[in-house]
């Protein structure tokens, strides 16, 4: 794998024209994940590339600033290059002379319109206006010119003159800087651009579609704009200066609105630009539709698991020590603490209980230490075991019930993998868990329940559901069989791989829009 970085045009820059570089079949655009975070989207990206050996891939990894962290995944034979897009960069030098065809005032206005709630058309205008500057590699002082300063002042005066200007300035700079970085980053040539989220990754995919005329597709695991909105609402670093109280028609905007509007603009442009708007489960589609995704282009391709291998694994015998497992990273979103509390309740009801936590512990070491301390405090040192990163196939033959206590999920692979091995699951009612355990509405014939749903952060419910399954072997068997059949029918990796292969080849072979227009 070639690691190509484009940090600054003056140094270490691949100056070859895009046409000189090898053209990848698929350019995957990943934001803040692959190959630097394990599990989740990263694992999905890695697996997808690995299972499409006939295609050549490149990756654009979007990071806030250099240097990149330590990679959690090694190279793959068909992954040709890893490019880094740093949002703190401007991918151009500064200089006294700018191309005459560049009109900063017009560009600033267009960027403002786009950030305040534009879509693909507005983005295309921004790209067109910025093009002379990108071509001349003169984008470095775009943020620092007096014109840009006047823009931020005008924007502030118009939008939120009551806000802390200091906060507004940095918010604008982060947003505008990210926009400039994304739009001036040297785009690797590819036949298809595939983003795994909206946000900056979606913005880059939209830009690729506009600039190259090549198809862009998106596979959204969680709804990026929703997650950003929650993050922005919870952010203690944004000072509340507008108390809207209970007034729902207060026209004043605050910084949270400003951030949200920008991310929604990115999403709108991305959905409009993408030839395929894919997601893992139906619950996501309504959010996508709200932000302009066209139903005709929308499709569900769920996560897939290796059914052939997992379904052949032996099942835990009723005579084996009762064993439950939570498969996942030890991070707060998985709510391991609720799992531990449930195990504490369960231990008194189920003699000889073994409780496993199967997943990496190094992502948030502080949280891991907290969990270990909690387990010790609850007297679970002999019952609970944190294994770290393991091969689940080695553990499934010992597990009677799979558990998921996450506060948020998209389409958890752990539930599907356990299902393929005919292990029932007790899961919180988040993401696609209901769909996986109870089947989609269009499931014909209905396969029945594959597990039990509980409320979020409810150790008592979790413990009760696990206990019910551990005590009732027949029910466990019934749920396991239903899950196994459902995974075989809808979530088999081969089906997913075939679906992506078909999509990739269809778009790779399609003429570019510009060529088609010509």
């Amino acid at each position, binding site marked *: 794998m070639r690691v190509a970085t484009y940090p600054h045009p003056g140094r270490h820059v691949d100056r070859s024209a895009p046409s000189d570089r090898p053209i990848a079949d698929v350019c995957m655009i990943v934001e803040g994940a692959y190959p630097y975070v394990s599990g989740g989207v990263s694992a999905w990206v890695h697996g997808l590339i690995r299972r499409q050996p006939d295609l050549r891939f490149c990756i654009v990894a979007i*990071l806030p600033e250099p240097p990149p962290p330590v990679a959690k995944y090694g190279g793959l034979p068909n992954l040709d290059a890893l490019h880094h897009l740093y949002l703190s960069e401007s991918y151009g030098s500064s200089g006294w002379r700018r191309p005459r065809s560049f009109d900063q005032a017009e560009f600033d206005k267009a960027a403002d319109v786009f950030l305040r709630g534009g879509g693909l058309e507005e983005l295309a205008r921004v790209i067109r206006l910025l093009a002379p500057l990108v071509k001349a590699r003169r984008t470095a002082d775009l943020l620092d010119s007096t014109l840009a300063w006047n823009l931020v002042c005008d924007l502030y005066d118009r939008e939120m003159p009551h806000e802390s200007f200091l906060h507004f300035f940095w918010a604008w700079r982060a947003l505008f800087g990210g926009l400039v970085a994304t739009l001036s980053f040297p785009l690797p040539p590819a036949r298809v651009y595939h983003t795994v989220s909206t946000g900056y990754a979606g913005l880059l995919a939209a830009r690729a579609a506009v600039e190259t005329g090549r198809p862009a597709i998106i596979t959204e*695991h969680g709804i990026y704009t929703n997650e950003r909105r929650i993050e922005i609402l919870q952010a203690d670093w944004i000072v509340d200066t507008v108390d809207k109280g209970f007034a729902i028609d207060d026209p004043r905007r605050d910084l949270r609105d400003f951030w949200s509007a920008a991310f929604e603009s990115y999403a709108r442009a991305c959905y409009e630009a993408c030839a395929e708007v894919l997601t893992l489960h139906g619950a996501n589609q309504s959010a996508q539709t709200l932000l302009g995704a066209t139903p005709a282009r929308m499709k569900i391709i769920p996560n897939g698991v290796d059914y052939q291998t997992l379904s052949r694994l032996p099942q835990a015998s009723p005579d084996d020590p009762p064993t439950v497992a939570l498969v996942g990273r030890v991070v707060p979103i998985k709510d391991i603490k609720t799992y531990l509390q449930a195990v504490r309740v369960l231990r008194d009801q189920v003699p000889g209980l073994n409780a496993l936590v199967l997943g990496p512990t190094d992502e948030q070491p502080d949280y891991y230490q907290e969990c270990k301390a909690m387990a010790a405090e609850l007297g679970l040192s002999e019952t609970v075991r944190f294994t770290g990163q393991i091969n689940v196939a080695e553990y499934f033959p010992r597990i009677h019930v799979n558990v998921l206590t996450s506060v948020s999920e998209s389409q958890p692979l752990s539930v599907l993998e356990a299902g393929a091995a005919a292990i029932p699951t007790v899961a919180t009612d988040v993401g696609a868990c209901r769909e996986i355990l109870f089947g989609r509405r269009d499931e014909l014939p209905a396969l029945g329940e594959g597990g039990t749903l509980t409320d979020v952060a409810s150790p008592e419910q979790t413990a009760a559901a696990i206990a019910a399954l551990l005590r009732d072997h027949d029910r466990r068997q019934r749920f396991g069989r239903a899950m196994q059949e459902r995974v075989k029918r809808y979530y088999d990796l081969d089906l997913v791989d075939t679906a992506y292969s078909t999509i990739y080849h269809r778009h790779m072979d399609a003429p570019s829009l510009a060529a088609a227009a010509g």
Partner: protein
Amino acid sequence: MAGIGFALERLYRSTSIADRAASFAHASVIAAGPCLLAVLCIWLISATINELEGKTTIAAFRALVIYSFALSFVVTAPIALVSTRLISDELHDLDVAAVPGIMLAGFVFSAVATVGFGTLLFGVALDLETSADVAAVANCTLIGLVWVACLFASVTRDYNSVTIFFAAGMLVAVVSVTLSYNWRPDLATMLWGFSVGLGVTLFGLLSRVIATFPFAVTSIVTPLRALWRASIGYWPIALGGLFGAIGAWVDKWVVWLSPFGTQIQNGLLHAPLYDSAMFVSYLVVIPAYAAFVLHLEVRFFRNYRLFYSSILEHATLAQIRAHGRRLRDETIASLTGITVPQLVICALVAASAPALVEVLDMQFRQVGTLRLGVIGAAFQFLFITCSSLTLYFDRRMVFLALQALFLVLNGGLTWALLPLGQTYLGLGFLAASAISAAVAYLALVRTLYRLDYLTFIANNPAVRIRRRAAKAL
């Protein structure tokens, strides 16, 4: 879930806005005060001693002291400015314990540099007796350390100490030089007598500095390294300080080396007609410097703090701009209010130059130089204040450019206008001061009118750091 939202907070927290330059800029302004006191001191020594017939000891002594002032000023200016900037940074970061170490490092660098250059000048270039040579180097080094101590004391805006100890030291110097000359009229004795006065100033200032920062220096290596690194990081300030110091003296050097200069003894050059007229001119603008320091204390600094604190306290843009307007308007009004009356005073002094020459026991042919010098000194005041004020807003490249401009103009115009003759000696200084003052004033006004843009973008350390990080890749 993929996403980069986590990065936003980090980007958002970067709120550092440059206001750490404030106490540093005080120092550069206050440096002009002791300089003027030194001029007064030399003039007093000349006035209190009646030279024995046929001897030129006083002339040589005066020339050596002037050499020492010039050399030490030039050598220590970059070190003193960079170390005071570093101290300002430490004070801004509330690391008070680091201050004595940096001061000590500043003294070490200054002492080494002054002894080195002093030995070259007095021991090698000039033909002095060994005793006079040693006394001159000691004298030069003490003056250098006094400069540095002055700046350190003024970082904490301890102006009274600077003025009191400098005045006391100079008074002791006048007395001890007079006594020593009457006891033994040779160069070495007079120089040591002068050093006694310098010692009073130096140790007085040190006592104030130590009282303000009563922290032990556990290692000298760390602050020496820090100062060295700062010299590289703040190179425009160091170079600007060097240019400024040379610029202040270059017109004298040009005249000394011209046909108007004379050689006293031991290879010492001076131009008594030019030098004394110029020194008297500097004394005339003392009221302007005093008024300016008063303005800094009473109005400027209050407005300056208001402007920056309003930003950090999350004011709206309208509020920030209102504070900026007030800072700008009051600064311009004060500069005008001080400079215009001072120019009137200078014009009156210039008009009454013939009478002044008689009162001060100067020669009538110095009238022209005195007139030009007095007006020039008023413009030089405006130049020094405007260029120093740019440092308050961390416009270090502007400061450097202004100092370079004055250096080139003062040297170049003084040299170019020498053919005009004795009457017009000083015209070069006047022209250089007037042009530089106009440019510095425009630069300052431009800075003040663009204060919000400079504060948030062009001059914002947080933005600069990111720009540097990008370039470093």
